[in-house]
């Protein structure tokens, strides 16, 4: 055999790279099945209302219309529970009795053609009885607010607390106490590919059994779904629950995803499409229009109240965080996500005294779920912004202040757990160096000032979670990894090939990783939360050990020797004593008479966070901590308030790097993606109406918005370090980094995202940093607590940035 050349640590390409460039890769969007009908939604135009009646006659009468399905068709239908939900089954596949947000599906028109369905949908008339609505999460938690779900009085959608030490006493003793409120508006993921799903009811069970009668429900049929989904098994579980089918009778196939960022996690339109197919008696396809994508899922808006006590030496002595998240109209993951949010709220700092509260409220807005940097960006904006306020007030350099307080190896975290693999100080140093923290700022034109800022974060990963894989070697010596990790451009298919090839010491060309298909690929919790490289990697490692065992046992059986006498190498087995006995795996499998040798591998993380008392959560929060930072240099037009990010750097703790390219793409992707929510993206509700569900009014960063100087670094461990997912690490720090850079440049502090020019201009006026009209320069600041020397911008260029 030839020596194996390691591919871990190289920019090993995804196998379909060429097809990705030419456009010949296939998305679920491109899938079709015979006799497929097309669905079009009728969505609610009111934020909260009782459905009095739905007149579907005119639509149904149109030639080409198969059926119009409403919530009424789903209730009392034998063997169907029309409600679903990751944590609370509170969401109907199609609205039943009432609507809870604008854009909620009220009826589904199914027709022979998409054009007919669209035309017919215009003829469905819904008669509503409007109800009082509530959009703001804090208002929703107030007494007397409109209730969305009778089962959840007070609009409670999760409430958790954590405390350690004595916060009140420590605040009372603190030399300085800082209080502030930071807000993040609702946002939208905007994957380029919309949600799209095909559902088909099939007579034959997926394991080859024929339908065995009504005992399996729905005429003994099984359900086959193709969906652009990040969590195929979550879809399977939900559908099997709703339709009373054994999980094996629901098959979910997922192809390449055209972006997700959390938008396609859990369960989205699949229940609706499956219900429509059931009623229509035909396979049904639904591709959402862009506004419907906006109406399907969004990011949690949040209000963060943060109080921090400091001693005279610049150490944090106490911290109190209260976060209220806006869950939207349905729970999705909010009840559990707010618990995760709890441990993400204190920031990566040593806190002897800490009190955290994290709540979510139902409101009459689009349901929310994980969003790249989930439940972290909101709190990071608060704690990293406040830290620079504190630094300015205490006259300490912001980097130095962080250095004094960041968590280090062996520190005890707010949850009471002892931390290991802690790299915050290195990340801080890397970010500061990369952005030239101590270098002079460049000269600027009159009326323009520059500043630098950074933000650092910690994030737990979804815990508990489970990933199973299957590894097979066939008689041709090809290796197949069955995995349900979803390829959405992050390159997981290449990563898995790299891991399998390296750990088995075989040529990567021999390794195949087919697309997720719950009928063939084993269970995986989800491809999200930056968990896949780590958890699928662990499952692969487990499978590889099993495969070596199995091959050794097989050879030992064939040779009549002890299995300990068999040595398994990359692609061959031999008796230790007799190198001439070596046979290839292909020969070994062929000689066994089997088609393939198949083994399982599993990764399982346990929930070690004790929340028996939801107000006293403690324990181990995550299987490992994500760590990352962002740093920027901005230029501010002080007459307009417009902030331009001229330089940006993103980093993360990456453990053992599988592909430097893909880490860089994730870090840079975080910065590019994060610019939108930091500077201009927001969902705007007026009178309960979602006013901007389109890309003309919900703007995304373009190539011209990318900083001219954009860099990334991955902090790597040695070959024995853990694998790490890296999809979100540079994102949460970006918005506070920009806000801090603005503050550094001008003394203006904005505590509400996005940092629109208008908000910045108002803050500039408040800070007295308004320009002198005749010259376009800013008057000297009244106080210059950070010692940044921000004054006349024309002379600022020579000053040291963070002296």
């Amino acid at each position, binding site marked *: 055999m030839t020596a194996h050349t390691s591919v871990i640590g190289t920019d090993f390409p995804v196998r379909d790279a060429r097809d990705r460039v030419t456009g010949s890769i296939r998305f679920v969007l491109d899938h079709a099945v015979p006799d497929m009908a097309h669905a079009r939604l009728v969505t609610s135009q009111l934020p909260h209302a009782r459905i009095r009646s739905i007149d579907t006659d005119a639509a149904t009468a149109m030639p080409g219309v198969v059926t119009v399905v409403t919530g009424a068709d789903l209730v009392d239908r034998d063997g169907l529970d029309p409600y679903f939900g990751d944590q609370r089954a509170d969401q109907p596949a199609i609205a039943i009795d009432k609507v809870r947000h604008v854009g909620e599906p009220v009826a589904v028109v199914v027709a022979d053609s998409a054009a007919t369905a669209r*035309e017919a949908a*215009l003829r469905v008339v819904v008669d509503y009885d409007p109800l009082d609505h509530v959009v703001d999460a804090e208002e929703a938690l107030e007494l007397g607010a409109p209730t969305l779900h009778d089962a959840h009085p007070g609009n409670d959608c999760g409430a958790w607390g954590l405390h350690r030490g004595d916060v009140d006493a420590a605040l009372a003793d603190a030399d300085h106490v800082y209080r502030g409120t930071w807000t993040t508006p609702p946002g939208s993921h905007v994957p380029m590919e919309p949600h799209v799903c095909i559902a088909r009811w099939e007579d034959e069970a997926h394991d080859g059994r024929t339908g065995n009668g009504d005992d399996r429900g729905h005429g003994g049929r099984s359900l086959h779904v193709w969906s652009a989904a990040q969590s195929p098994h979550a879809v399977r579980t939900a559908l099997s629950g709703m339709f009373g089918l054994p999980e094996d009778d629901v098959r979910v196939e997922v192809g390449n995803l055209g972006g997700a960022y959390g938008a396609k996690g859990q369960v989205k339109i699949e229940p609706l499409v499956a219900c429509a197919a059931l009623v229509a008696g035909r396979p049904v396809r639904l591709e959402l229009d862009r506004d419907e994508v906006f109406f399907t899922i969004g990011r949690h808006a949040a209000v963060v109240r943060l109080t921090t006590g400091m001693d005279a030496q610049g150490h944090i002595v106490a911290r109190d965080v209260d976060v209220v998240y806006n869950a939207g109209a349905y729970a999705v993951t909010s009840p559990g996500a707010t618990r995760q949010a709890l441990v993400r709220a204190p920031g990566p700092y040593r806190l002897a005294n800490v009190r955290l509260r994290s709540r979510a409220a139902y409101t009459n807005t689009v349901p929310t779920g994980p969003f790249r940097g989930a439940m972290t960006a909101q709190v990071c904006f608060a704690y990293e912004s406040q830290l620079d306020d504190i630094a300015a007030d205490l006259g300490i350099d912001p980097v130095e202040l962080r250095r004094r307080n960041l968590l280090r190896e062996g520190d005890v975290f707010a949850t009471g757990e002892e931390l290991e693999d802690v790299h915050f100080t290195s990340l801080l140093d890397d970010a500061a160096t990369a952005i030239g923290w101590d270098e002079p700022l460049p000269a600027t034109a009159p009326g323009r000032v520059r500043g630098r800022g950074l933000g650092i974060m910690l994030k737990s990963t979804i815990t508990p979670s489970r990933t199973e894989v299957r590894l097979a070697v066939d008689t041709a010596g090809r290796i197949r990894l069955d995995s349900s990790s979803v390829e959405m451009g992050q390159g997981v298919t290449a990563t898995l090939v790299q891991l399998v090839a390296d750990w088995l010491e075989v040529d990567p060309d021999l390794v195949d990783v087919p697309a997720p298909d719950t009928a063939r690929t084993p269970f995986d919790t989800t491809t999200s939360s930056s968990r896949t490289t780590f958890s699928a990697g662990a499952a692969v490692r487990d499978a590889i050990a099993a495969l070596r065992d199995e091959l050794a046992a097989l050879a030992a059986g064939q040779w009549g020797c002890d299995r300990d006498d068999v040595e398994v190498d990359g692609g061959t087995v031999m008796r230790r004593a007799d190198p001439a006995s070596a046979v290839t795996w292909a020969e070994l499998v062929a000689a066994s008479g089997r088609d393939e040798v198949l083994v399982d591998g599993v990764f399982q993380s346990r929930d070690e966070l004790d929340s028996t008392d939801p107000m006293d959560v403690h324990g181990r929060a995550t299987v490992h901590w994500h760590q990352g930072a962002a740093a920027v240099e901005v230029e501010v*037009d002080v*007459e*307009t308030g*417009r902030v331009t990010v001229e330089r940006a750097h993103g980093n993360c703790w990456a453990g053992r790097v599988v592909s430097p390219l893909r880490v860089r793409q994730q870090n840079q992707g975080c910065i590019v993606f994060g610019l*939108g929510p930091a*500077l*201009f993206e927001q969902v*705007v509700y007026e009178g309960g109406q979602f*006013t*901007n569900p389109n890309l*003309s*009014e919900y*703007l*995304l*960063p*373009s190539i*011209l*918005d990318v900083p001219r100087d954009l860099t990334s670094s991955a902090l790597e461990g040695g070959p024995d370090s853990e694998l790490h997912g890296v999809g979100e690490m540079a994102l949460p720090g970006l918005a506070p980094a920009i806000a801090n850079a603005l503050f550094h440049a001008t003394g203006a502090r904005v505590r509400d995202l996005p940092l*629109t*020019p*208008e908000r910045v*201009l108002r803050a500039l006026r408040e800070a007295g940093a308004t320009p002198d*009209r*005749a010259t376009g320069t800013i008057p000297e600041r009244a106080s210059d607590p950070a010692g940044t020397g921000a004054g006349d911008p024309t002379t600022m260029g020579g000053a040291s940035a963070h002296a």
Partner: protein
Amino acid sequence: MPVASWLEPTSLDQACDLLADDEFESTALAGGTAVSLMLKMGFLDPERLVSLARLPGLDQIDVGDDHVDIGAAVSLSQVAQHATLRACLPSLATACASVGNVRVRNIATLGGNLAEADYASDPPAVLVSLGAVCVIRGPSGERRAGVEDVVVGHYTTSLEPGELITSVRIPTPPGRSATYLKYLTRSSEDRPCIGVAARVDRAEARPDASVTGLDVVVGAVAGTPQRVAEATEAEVGRPLDRAAADRLATAYAEAIDPIDDARGSSWYRTQMIEVFVRRAVIELSDGPGRGGTA
């Protein structure tokens, strides 16, 4: 309802007759970018679509001694990239180069842009500032009207049924400088929060020569391009200096009552009118401007 017929007249008379026929509800389209959007959104529901793509002679750019005629079917990209227009009408070329994206500019026409009368589109304010005149053909013949008399309201023109803009005539007197500043508050692909088009005519081609004509027109802040004639007229006969820029900035900010939307509140737009009117005038006070996007 689906559109019942697609018509492609091959002469102007035929086109005007088709559009004037009140038996059918007809919509004319040139590049069709705006019409297509309005159909999708249900703002239009015509029985007939009348494509102007096969009308002859509307795609010409004629450069005369003291004016330029641009055919209505000339695309915004063509205006933006035309070497002569970039030299003699830089503010217009800048404005056309900044509309939407390259795909929209390739398809959308100058005539269509005016006929849409989109309050947040860039060219109308510039054309008003340059004193451009539309040549309009209708069932009863040809008439001419200044752009400010064609774009009369929020997505509203003074065009009568059956009337089509066939070309736009833009004066290019000697001693003229002009600029267009577009200001964005969100992504680079946003429509403007405000756009300021400024034009100055001087007796001699020197920055300190006194002004013989001046116009400053603010777009995207109201239903139509806004000008404050008293303020600009007051500067005629004086040099266009920084003091003039300040006077104009203040006068415009005080006189215009701007709209309130996601690109900026009314308060903010007032501040930006002040800033960008001054910047535009300062640019002209220093010499011929080209404008740009901020």
